[in-house]
């Protein structure tokens, strides 16, 4: 991966405490999994940045390599990958997500 892209990915991930890379936007999700995670974040009333990877092919491909994670959505908190839709759902159901988002 090019250094420029790696740097852009890093700065995007760290641009806010909670960042969601998704298909579509928070108001117009274009994938059920992305919509599901947006719904969970809204339920937690957390301030987050949404990044639409469908309009940024470089970012989309780069993120897969950067985090060794091939699918979207991808949720990051404090610059670290929390997980995709399955993990976010599990953490939400177990009650652990509150701590992850607030910690």
């Amino acid at each position, binding site marked *: 991966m090019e250094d420029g892209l790696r740097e852009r990915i890093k700065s995007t991930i760290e641009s806010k405490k909670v960042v969601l890379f998704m298909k579509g936007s928070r108001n117009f999700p274009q994938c059920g999994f992305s919509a599901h995670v947006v719904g969970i974040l809204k339920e937690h009333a957390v301030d987050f940045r949404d990044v639409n990877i469908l309009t940024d092919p470089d970012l989309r491909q780069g993120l897969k390599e950067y985090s*060794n994670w091939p699918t979207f959505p991808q949720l990051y908190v404090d610059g670290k*990958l929390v997980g*995709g*839709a399955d993990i976010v759902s599990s*953490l939400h159901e177990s009650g652990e997500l509150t701590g992850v988002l607030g910690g």
Partner: protein
Amino acid sequence: MIEPDAVRTLLLRAFPQADIDLVDLTGTRDHYQARIVSEAFRGKSLIEQHQLVYAALGDAMNGPIHALALKTFTPEAWQKLNPNP
């Protein structure tokens, strides 16, 4: 798309003796749901467990499989959720 048997083979190669429940959600061989119970997940975070699965599937995740709903468990975690009556 990719045949369920091929997905299962890739998973078993990475997780021998795992208990794998694989469902073709849409009948189109590209949207799958997998439940994997394996010793290999012991001591690993959920993130690390899923990364192991994605690594096992490799290129199959880059196109052939469009969506994979994933649940991973250690044998103990699975037992806890499904205690014998």
